[in-house]
């Protein structure tokens, strides 16, 4: 069995539990942050940053990206970069409307 396969199948359950508790805490933080009137840009930025942190925890620990081959990271990042280009491409249009 390959090193990557073995690592994925032998899980540290205490780490998984800690990540799960961390995700629940970040959910509470997400809701609490919405109670403050941060202004529209900060409200979106806060929501996206907390969601990205939660997604990173799920990706790194639950989806085992920590010990994964570089090819899987390349596939994932190509998607993130393409969505990022789409978002950046929308900025000029939004800037004209503000």
């Amino acid at each position: 069995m390959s090193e990557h396969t073995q690592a994925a199948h032998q899980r540290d359950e205490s780490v998984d539990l800690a990540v799960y508790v961390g995700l629940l805490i970040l959910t509470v933080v997400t809701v609490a942050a919405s109670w403050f009137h941060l202004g529209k840009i900060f409200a979106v930025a806060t929501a996206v940053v907390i969601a990205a942190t939660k997604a990173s925890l799920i990706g790194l620990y639950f989806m085992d990206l920590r010990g994964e081959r570089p090819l899987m990271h390349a596939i994932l990042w190509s998607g993130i970069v393409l969505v990022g280009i789409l978002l950046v491409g929308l900025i000029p249009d939004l800037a004209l409307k503000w």
Partner: protein
Amino acid sequence: MQAVLANENGWTEEDAGKVGVWLFLLSEILLFGALLASYLSTRLGNPDCALGVTAWPEAGHGAAVALAALNTVILLTSSYTMVRSIGRAGRGDRAGFRKNLMATVALGAAFLVVKSVEYTGKVHHGLYPGSELALANQGLSIFLSYYYGMTILHMVHVVVGMAWNGTLLYASSSAAMPSMARKSEFAGLYWHFVDVVWVFLFPLLYLI
């Protein structure tokens, strides 16, 4: 123990399968990423549907946020039971694997039940595309189209994930555990992705 064949670079059949699952997830990232980008640009840029101008009307919004938060907890818990089932499968613990996978499927069903309760409340308050309320408010109509489009698409993914996990559960009564460990890892990648999508949808649809 089942022999696992690897090529000269150490790549196994499982590694190749994972590449396939990740390529599929790439297409899903682009699908949901494009929808979220379109939604955010509409909320931020369209004067009829901008933040602070139109989002959810007050009626029933508190209950909807509580239900959506509950669904977040349900999906996060289902991701946790999914990793537990994969861990148990890796150790050859068939009973532990089946118990945790069953919990994952049950939590997926719970998500759908809570979502239908939330949809019922929204319809009761006239919050659906084509309602009198939506027709009188163009911004709300646009917002509701995004809301239902993205949440229903996400629900379809939950149903597909439940079907995938349910199939594994059915097969696991007699299948060899090393094979179940490999297959559950593929299903787990998809299930966690469905969770990640909801992690973004929850604050962006309900809290801004």
